[in-house]
C-alpha cells in the first residue's frame, strides 16, 4: 500500500502525541503545584497535536493530493545518513582526539564525502581551517575547546 506524505505525517503526529501524552502522565506532582499542574499544558499540547494529525490523515484519505515530484530516491537518504555518520564520528572523536584534530578530520571527511578530490590541497585546507577555527574560538572568544590527548594546547 502506497501511503501519501500527508497520511504518513498524520500517523506520525498521532504517534508522537500519544508518546508525549504517556510521558506527561509520569510527571511528578508537586506540593507547590497550581490548578493546571505541571502536566496540564503538556496534555493540552498532546491533544492539539493528536487532533491535527487525525484531521490531516483523514483529509489525505478522503481527498488525496497529487503525487509529489520532489520525492528523493532512497540513495539520496543513504547519502544523508552517511553525512550524519561522519558528524556522529566527529562527536565521538572530540573528547579523545581534541578539537583541532577532530575538526580537521571533520572538514577533510565531509569535503571528500561531498565530492572533493583527496590530495594536498584538501589536507592543507582542512588543517588551516582547523587552526583558524581554534584561534577564533580559543584565543578570540576565550572558549575552552577540548584538547584531548594534545594537552599541551
Amino acid at each position, binding site marked *: 500500500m502506497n501511503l501519501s*506524505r*500527508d497520511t*504518513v*505525517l498524520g500517523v*506520525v*503526529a498521532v504517534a*508522537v*502525541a500519544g508518546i*508525549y501524552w504517556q*510521558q506527561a502522565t509520569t*510527571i*511528578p506532582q*508537586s506540593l*507547590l*503545584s*497550581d*490548578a*493546571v*499542574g*505541571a*502536566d496540564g*499544558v*503538556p496534555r493540552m*499540547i498532546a491533544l492539539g*497535536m493528536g487532533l*491535527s*494529525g487525525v484531521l*490531516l490523515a483523514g*483529509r489525505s484519505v478522503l481527498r488525496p493530493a497529487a503525487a*509529489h515530484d520532489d*520525492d528523493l530516491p532512497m540513495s*539520496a*537518504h543513504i547519502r*544523508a545518513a552517511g*553525512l*550524519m555518520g561522519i*558528524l556522529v564520528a*566527529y*562527536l565521538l572523536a*572530540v573528547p579523545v582526539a581534541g*578539537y583541532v584534530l577532530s*575538526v580537521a578530520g*571533520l*572538514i577533510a571527511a*565531509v*569535503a571528500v564525502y*561531498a*565530492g*572533493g578530490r583527496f590530495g594536498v590541497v584538501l589536507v592543507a*585546507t*582542512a588543517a588551516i581551517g*582547523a587552526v583558524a*577555527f581554534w584561534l577564533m*574560538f580559543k584565543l578570540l*572568544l*576565550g*572558549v*575552552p*575547546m*577540548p584538547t584531548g590527548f594534545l594537552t599541551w594546547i
Partner: protein
Amino acid sequence: MDLSTLAAALGGVIWGIFGGALPGISPSIAMALLLPFTYGMDPVVAIVLLASVYVGAEYGGSIPAILIRTPGTNSAAATTLDGYELARQGRAGEALGISLMSGLVGGLFGLAVLVLATEPLAAVALAFTPPAYFALGILGLSVIASLSGGSLLKGLIGAFLGLMVATVGTDPVSGVTRFTFGSPELLGGIRPILIMVGLFAVAEMLEQISLPGWDKASARDTRLKLPNLAMWKRLWKPQAIGCGIGTFEGVTPGAGGTVAAFMAYNEARRWSAHPEEFGKGSVEGVAAPESANNVVTATALVPLLSLGIPGSNSAAILLGGFLIHGLVPGPMLFQKAPEVVEGLYWGLLAANVFMVLVGLVILTPCIWLVNRPKPYLIAFILALVCSGVFAIEQSLFDVGLVLGFGVVGYGMRRLGVPVLPVVLGVVLGFLVESSYRRSLVLSNGEHSVFLEDPVSLGLLLAALLMTAYSFYREFWKK
C-alpha cells in the same frame, strides 16, 4: 561625542556583527564576553560599547540567515524564509543590501522612538500583566498560518512540536522536572538557537549532500547590491510595518525581536501587493523582519532606561554594564546621569551608521565565501556549526542535540512540514505557559481574568480574528 566613544561604537558593531553571524553566539553572549573589559572604561564608552554590540549582533544574525539558511540569532529566523530563497536565485547581494538598509531604517526609527517617546511608552510596559503576556504569546502564535506554506494543519503540527520542545526542563511554576529523562543537561530546557541551527543548517546540509546539482551564483551576482529608488518605493511599506510592530514588541519586556520579526513578516504579507511572492524570494519578506528586529534593539531600552526593567537577555547584560559603573537605570537616571543617557543616544546613532559602513565592507567577501566549491562549503559550514554550538555551553551534548534536530528537520522537509512554526512554538512556549498559569494562580483559577484585563482582551480578540481568517482561508475558500 569624543573619539573614544566613536571607537567604542565602531568596535562594538564589528564585534557584534562577528558574534551575531556565528551560529550559537547570541547578542547577549557577544555582549557578555566584552562585559569584563568595561570595568576600567569611562561609563559612557562602556555603555556605548555594549549597546553597539547589541546593534551589530542583531544585524549580523541576518547574514548567515540569508547566505546559508542558518539564522545567527533567534530574531533572524524569519529572514531565512525569503532571504535564502533570494540567495538561491542568485540574488544574495540584493537580499543582503535590503537587509542592511532595512536594518538601518529600523535602527534609526527605534532610536528616534527611544529619544522622543521613552516616558509615554514606559506606561505600555507597566500595563502588561501576566494575562496580557499570555495574550501576547497567543497573538504571536496566531501568525502560524502565514508561516505554514499553504497547509495550516501542517503548520499546526509544527507549532505543537515546538511547544512540546519548549516544555522540556524545569516546570516554570512548581519546579518539577519534565521530559528530561534523567539528563541534567536538559534541566534548563533546550535553547531555541540549538533547534534553529539543527532544523535549518544541519537539515540543509543533509539535503544538499543528497542533491546532485549546486546552484552557484554568477560572478555578477556575488556583489552587494543596495536598493535603488524603485526598490525603496516598494520597501517603505514593509519597513513601516516592521517599525510599528518592532516598537510595540520592543517596549514590551519579554517579547523581543523574534516575535516582532515573525509578526512583521506576517503583516507585510497581508498588506503586500504581491503576497504570492512571500516564501519564494520576496524582497518585502526580508525588509519587514529586518526592520522589526533592528527597531527592537533601541526600543527594548525603553523599559530598561525608564523603569530599570531588562526586557531581554541583552538588556540584562546592558543593565549589568550600568550597575558596574554605579549607575541604576530608572527614572532617576535621566536626572542623575544625563550625560550617560545622551552619550548612549549618540552612540546608538553612530553604531547604526557604522553598521552600514562595516556591512558595505564585509558583505561582498561574505557572498564570495559562500560561492566556494560545494564540498568545501558544506565541510566548513558543518565545522562552524559544530564549533559554534559547542562554544555556547562547552557542551558536546548540545552538539548531539543539534545533530538530532538536523535529522528531525530533514524528515520534516521530506514530509512537507514547515520549519518556522516549530521555531515560533519553541520561542513562545515558555511565555505562553508561564503567563497562563501565573494568571490563574493570581485569579484563583478563574479563566475570566483573561477577559477582564483590557490589554489581554484586545490582544486575544486580534489573535481570534487572525486565526478565524486563517481557518476560513484553509477550509472554506479552498
